[in-house]
């Protein structure tokens, strides 16, 4: 174990411990709860930043190992990819916590909510730092467990139905994943994630089992990533409160699935082996179907959050397309979308939450003219929506660009066509609400109108996080070549972790690293 390994454990604890403490706080202990919430979130972010500094500046490696069973360890490790996901989670956790505090003001069961919320974040960060499949499986299952209470948080029959479906899907996915991980462990032992995979030597011997396992992994992780036939829990889970939809269904849960697939592709099988097994193309086909299907469904959905959810279904598969392209540039596109999509979608969800909280808007047609009452939120929504469409200079554009370039690079130019259709569909379901919001005439009064008295259009704890993430979504695209941008980072990962030569030059042709 590296001496710094405990830092990883402490990072996990910064959300786990507050979460557990919060469970046992009384409803009225607002200040204390907020202290734990924000303190934990802030501390986590600070620690992760120090980790970043340690990794990048001082070149340290961090890992923590705990023996669970003979030959099977719980391994936490910080590599560039895990740091990417962890940083994303930590940043968005902080933002979402603030948002959630504002959002849930005066609503019941806040202690329970924040307790599970923190558990979810712990699990997500755990997934990020997982150093092997077993560890990832463990945190993945915990994520399932901790998310369910949030989905049913409102306690209505609707939310229960959603919760049931969510559980049905994720538990089955988890079961398949468990079987797959165990099987793989039996075949190859429990090995740490290795860039380029560690199964190459086994393939000739198990040329039947390994592809099957791959399929099982895709199914297992695909449930959370909302891949096509396994997606329908996601739109239903939108009955959850907005912060949940925002952080969990835009970032934590679905990204955990996508992240898992990325790990399996890159660090377990290795892209090359996956391609040799003939697995990348079907996976990409599935992802493409998901992209298109999600978009079409979003188009025909009038409920705002559900529309966003279907959009998530569609967008998360971009990540998978990128990885399945099996080339460095595509990998950059896919991985960077992990971050981009999260930030953009969380923006949109925050906006939806703002609309719902402030004016009681839940459906698209109710958005008419909302831009006049809530211009800032509407602006953020516009930025998020444009980002989803892939309009420059939003973050989504960078993704789309690299996906397109990646597709060309591996000779799969037709994928661009998919991107185009998807962009058009995205435009078809995002632009109408945007236009209606800015230019529509509201035909009736809002079903409610809160927070009118203040200086801002809504509660500051709702507005500021929204604007912050919107700014991030813009900044990640506009300043994509900045050395702290996700793109820069992802390029680093792809070049130095996955050993693709010269990708750096290919991406930042005019910038010397």
């Amino acid at each position: 174990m590296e001496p710094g390994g405990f830092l990883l454990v402490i990072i996990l604890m910064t959300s786990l411990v507050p979460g557990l403490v919060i469970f046992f706080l009384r409803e009225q202990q607002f200040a204390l709860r907020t202290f734990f919430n924000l303190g934990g979130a802030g501390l986590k972010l600070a620690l992760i930043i120090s980790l970043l500094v340690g990794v990048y500046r001082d070149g340290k490696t961090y890992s923590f190992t705990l023996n669970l069973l003979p030959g099977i360890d719980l391994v936490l490790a910080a590599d560039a990819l895990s740091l990417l996901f962890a940083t994303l989670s930590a940043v968005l956790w902080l933002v979402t916590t603030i948002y959630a505090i504002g959002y849930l003001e005066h609503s019941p069961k806040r202690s329970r909510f924040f307790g599970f919320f923190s558990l979810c974040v712990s699990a997500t960060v755990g997934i990020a730092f997982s150093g092997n499949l077993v560890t990832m499986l463990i945190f993945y299952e915990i994520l399932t467990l901790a998310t369910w209470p949030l989905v049913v948080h409102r306690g209505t029959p609707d939310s229960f139905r959603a919760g049931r479906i969510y559980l049905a899907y994720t538990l089955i996915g988890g079961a398949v994943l468990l079987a797959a991980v165990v099987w793989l462990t039996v075949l190859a032992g429990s090995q740490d994630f290795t860039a380029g995979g560690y199964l190459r030597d086994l393939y000739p011997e198990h040329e039947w089992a390994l592809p099957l396992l791959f399929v099982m992994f895709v199914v297992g992780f695909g449930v959370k990533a909302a891949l096509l036939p396994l997606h329908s829990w996601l739109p239903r889970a939108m009955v959850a409160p907005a912060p949940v939809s925002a952080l969990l269904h835009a970032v934590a849960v679905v990204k955990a699935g996508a992240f898992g697939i990325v790990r399996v592709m890159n660090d377990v099988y290795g892209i090359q082996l996956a391609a040799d097994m003939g697995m990348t193309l079907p996976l990409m086909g599935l992802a493409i179907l998901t992209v298109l299907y999600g978009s079409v469904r979003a188009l025909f959905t009038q409920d705002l959050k559900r529309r966003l959810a279907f959009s998530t279904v569609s967008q998360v598969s971009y990540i998978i397309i990128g990885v399945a392209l099996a080339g460095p540039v595509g990998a950059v596109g896919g991985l960077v979308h992990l971050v981009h999509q999260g930030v953009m979608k969380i923006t949109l969800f925050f906006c939806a939450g703002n609309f719902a909280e402030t004016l009681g808007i839940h459906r698209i047609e109710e958005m008419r003219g909302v831009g006049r009452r809530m211009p800032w939120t509407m602006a953020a929504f516009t930025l998020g929506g444009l980002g989803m469409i892939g309009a420059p200079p939003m973050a989504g554009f960078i993704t789309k660009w690299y996906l397109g370039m990646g597709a060309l690079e591996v000779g799969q130019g037709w994928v661009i066509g998919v991107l185009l259709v998807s962009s058009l569909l995205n435009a078809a379901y995002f632009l109408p609400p945007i236009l209606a919001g800015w230019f529509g005439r509201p035909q009736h009064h809002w079903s409610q109108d809160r927070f009118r008295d203040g200086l801002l259009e809504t509660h500051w704890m709702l507005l500021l996080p929204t604007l912050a993430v919107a700014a991030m979504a813009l900044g990640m695209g506009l300043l994509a070549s900045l050395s702290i941008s996700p793109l820069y980072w992802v390029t680093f990962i792809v070049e130095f972790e996955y050993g693709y030569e010269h990708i750096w030059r290919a991406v930042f042709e005019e910038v010397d690293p």
Partner: protein
Amino acid sequence: MSAAVAPWLALIPGMPLLLAFLLALDGRGALWRLTPLAVLPALLGAVLLPVGASAEYPAVLLGAELALDPIGRGLLLVTALLWGAAAVFAQGYLGGSAGAGVSRLIGSEHRHSRPGAAPTEPGLVRFHVFFLLAMAGNLGLILAGDAMVFYAFFALMSLSSVGLVVHERTREAWRAGWVYLGMTMLGEVALFSGLVLLVHGAGGHSLAELASEAPASPLAAALLLIGLGIKAGLLPLHLWLPLAHPAAPTPASAVLSGAMIKAGLLGWMRLLPEGEATLWVGDLLVVLGLLGAWFGVVAGVFQSRPKTILAYSSISQMGLMIAGLGVAIQVPALAPVLMAVVGFYAMHHGLAKGALFLCVGIAGRVRGPWILAYVGLPALALAGLPLTSGWVAKTALKVPMEGPLADLSVVLWVLTLAAAGTTLLMVRLVAVMLRERGPSRPLPLSMSMPWLVLVVAGVLLPWFWVPDWTEASLDAYRLWSVLWPMLLGLVVGLLGWAVARWRGWGMPGWIPEGDVWVPLERLGGWWLRVFGGVPGRVHSLWDGVMELLGEGVRGFWNGVLAWAVRGERRMVQWEVMGVLFLGLVLGVFLVLALSLG
């Protein structure tokens, strides 16, 4: 100087952006009055910055580059001028208490203003924000030094001008807005994919690299053709244009038609890959351009609203420029010259068309024939009156084609006839405008000055930008060759007008506003009526099936539960348990005995 280039270049699109941001931030103040100032950096830059000035912004996008080349410089100047003029015009057109359109704009359902602050129209602020955003895009794309930046500004311009089109929120405006938006999005994605292909081929995204290293990819060319053609009003892709221009407020129409429409052209000039494989692009452009030049005339003549006529005129004029560009692609030897000419033409057209659109706004305030004083000069310039910019432009376009390099006589003829068409259209415009009788209201300086600036600029334009063959064009033959089509158009137009007045005929609406779009729309409506229910029906069918399935599953599950409960009740019975016990003892024994032999 060079140290200031980068911030200066950045400020050209940055200033409107900044102002838009401030405007949005303030929300209700009078900051919108500052809108015209946003063009200052561009104007000054166009004048003062050295040609070839360029700057890199490594952190932005994938390493952004802004540059000022000769064509860009001219365009920048004109564009800035136009935007500035439109901005000033908008102050009077929309803003003042006397504004005619203002009453329409006050649709504020939720006017909530701080007590004490002057009540300001929120729609006004919104208009100016989008106006500034579009301005930023337009100015920026001229400066773009790499594909990414070009695309970004292009998209910014296209998308934010949607806000200008639907600004008035009438049915017409929405319709136009949707059509515009839809086609714009199509254009965006086509442009995007074209760019991806190009950049992938070139291995870099700066325009210089694209020009020098991109292989001629037919697919990329076709995509660019579509993507930019929509903006440029290329013939079958022009559908949005006659809808959007009349729907937008006048200052917006002016920039839409005067400045933004050129973005497509500029894009082609910058991006179209050259080479054997893409020669057909030139052919196509020539054919479509010429068709467009004529179609614009024909369709425009049948219009009865000045802005629509102007829109079709734009289509027609763009057709000319496109044809010029096409020739330049077809005949690479002519390319340098023709490119410059097309650039000049674009500048000319921007100024003239901008002025004309402003005239439409002015027409609502001046009585009767006085309008002729405003509309005359720009209309004539557009028609190519000698010594105007139009004359120089048209001549300049034709002169290189007459050279021996290629047989372009057909093109020349059509070009020439198109000039007649232009004149005809102008006559029709004037006729329509004269017919419109509004109450005379004071014309604020903010509306007349911009017009004046544009007209003066149009007049001065040729003198600042004198190609070496200007002298030659002054000779009689050339003079005539420009004049006779013009006269032809004039005569036909006046005759037609006279006949119509005499007989009291109205112009038949043979070609509706938005020409092909109208039947398409009808077809779409029919399609929707017939098949519109299909998704719903599929959905409800799906729902039904799922419900049935769910019920089946639920029923099955309940059956299983009931069956299991019954079975359990049986298994709890002592006798059953006993039988099972004995059976198991014997069973295990037998299994063991049999399996062990």
